[in-house]
């Protein structure tokens, strides 16, 4: 027994379990309060006050919503495939929760002479794992939409599938540019390389733009929320869902937003890095001692990471209440004819810049060259006769 206790304390098991539970709880908490924030942001943008009756400033609204969801009738249509119908929202929630496992939320804590990373699992293929899980996420929507045995649900599910597949390509290629620069797939190392204000956003502005647009499409957020487009498809893939199953679908969307904001922060905004980080850490270490100082500095880093994540979530909401929904053909045109060629161009430019040895200058010169080339090509395009104005 004592050897078991010794093993527990000596191995990382306890600390890792603790970190996983904390990250899990924070993810769920942020997702719950995203529903509140969404309504507040929507209200403020539309010159309203938003929910303000449940608790101070409406802060108990998520609890009230969850209570409502639980007590609604849990209805399964007679013609639906019962097991798949239940599996759909479970899968959606499961994949959404899994994706933040490899995200480094902070540097490390030194506990009992051991360094514990603030990350559920540190694997050397982190970003690949995120992609794998995110592309599994569409199964929840697909299965739910198909099992409902409803035309609108099926159409929504098909839209979700084709949209996710289309935008995953451009997203993957915009990330490959980053991987070429960093030379690693591990999210922790990608973040560590951006130490000292050396953020990837300065190297990959176009990559960031493509990644953000694709992230919106992958999360099924406006302007790409065609799978649940209520003007055309009633409720899209979750038309037939009610009670907490519907709640799971909606909740999974917010968790996905959280996860994609976290990944964006890691890939482009330096994760837990912030300007003047070394100075803060050295000051803290000289004031509090090596171990405590390092741990407090890590806490500050976690704060900076979460600031970035929360701003990311706010940006998702800000765009949702600004931009109207795309038409489906516009969505496909943008994905296949716009983003993928741009991502390939970005890839070539990044490769050239790395080979030339002047990364930063090379990439910006390359981007300017590309813009010039595209506009020259655009001005030389054959003009249509009797073209319809504005079409």
């Amino acid at each position, binding site marked *: 027994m004592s050897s078991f206790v010794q093993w527990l304390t000596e191995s990382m098991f306890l600390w890792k379990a603790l970190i996983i539970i904390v990250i899990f709880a924070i993810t769920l908490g942020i997702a719950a309060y995203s529903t509140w924030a969404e309504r507040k942001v929507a209200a*403020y943008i539309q010159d309203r*006050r938003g929910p303000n009756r449940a608790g101070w400033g409406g802060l108990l609204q998520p609890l009230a919503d969850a209570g409502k969801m639980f007590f609604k009738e849990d209805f399964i249509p007679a013609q639906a495939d019962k097991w798949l119908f239940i599996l759909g929202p479970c899968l959606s929630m499961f994949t959404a929760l899994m994706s933040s496992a490899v995200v480094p939320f902070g540097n490390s804590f030194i506990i009992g002479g051991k360094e514990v990373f603030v990350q559920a699992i540190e694997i050397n293929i982190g970003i690949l794992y995120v992609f794998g899980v995110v592309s599994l996420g569409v199964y929840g929507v697909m299965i739910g939409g198909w099992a409902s045995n409803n035309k609108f649900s099926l159409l929504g599910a098909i839209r979700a599938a084709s949209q996710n597949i289309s935008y995953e390509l451009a997203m993957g290629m915009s990330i490959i540019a980053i991987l070429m620069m960093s030379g690693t797939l591990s999210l922790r190392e990608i973040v560590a390389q951006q130490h000292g204000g050396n953020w990837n956003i300065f190297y990959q502005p176009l990559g960031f733009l493509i990644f953000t647009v694709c992230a919106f499409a992958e999360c099924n957020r406006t302007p790409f929320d065609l799978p649940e487009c209520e003007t055309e498809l009633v409720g899209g893939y979750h038309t037939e869902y009610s009670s907490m199953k519907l709640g799971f679908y909606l909740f999974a969307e917010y968790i996905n937003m959280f996860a994609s904001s976290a990944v964006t922060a890691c890939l482009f905004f330096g994760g837990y890095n912030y300007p003047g980080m070394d100075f803060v850490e050295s000051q803290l270490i000289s004031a509090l001692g090596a171990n405590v100082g390092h741990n407090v500095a890590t806490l500050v880093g976690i704060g900076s990471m979460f600031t970035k994540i929360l701003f990311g979530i706010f940006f998702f909401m800000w*765009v949702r209440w*600004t931009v109207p929904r795309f038409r489906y053909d516009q969505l496909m045109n943008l994905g296949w004819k716009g983003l993928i060629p741009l991502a390939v161009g970005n890839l070539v430019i990044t490769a050239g810049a790395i080979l030339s040895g002047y990364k930063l200058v090379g990439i910006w010169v390359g981007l300017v060259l590309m813009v010039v080339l595209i506009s020259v090509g655009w001005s030389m395009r054959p003009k249509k006769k009797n073209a319809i104005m504005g079409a």
Partner: protein
Amino acid sequence: MQLTNRAKKTDKSELSLFERSYLPSLATGLGITIKHFFQAKPTIEYPEQKRYLGPVFRGHHILKRDEEGRERCTACGLCAVACPAEAISMVAQERVKGEEHLYREEKYAAVYEINMLRCIFCGLCEEACPKQAVYLRHDKFVPVFTDRSDVIYGKDQLVEDMNQRYQRDAWTKEDAMKLWK
């Protein structure tokens, strides 16, 4: 043909490449929404804050008494006829000897009911009344119902209380604001 100066001519020229990238209009849109995000909100949070409704607001009905405390209503039924929502109903009765201090006219309303779910607070009953008996108060709302049985208001809720006589005063904004405190 130009009718007003407010019409804006739509620019139907072909979009440039920059405009077609959708980014400039996206940035403009985000700018507009964030401006609204930080703007002061015009909401009046009703149960806590009450707004000025003016001295001619039409609220809760009242059946007036005269100076001697006698009910003015003679149950002629003109208010019920005038009512577009058919919310008013009444039962008339003859005044007997000894009731002269209660009812001013020889005929009075034994039952006078207003269905507050039907009433649209148009004030036509007030205009129709030849005896200046029914009025819509400017200082009191009909309260929220929680039960269907609360909906029909009888004489007990409508007839004026002699200790708290209703006067349509508060003609200035400041006076009216005091009423709604």
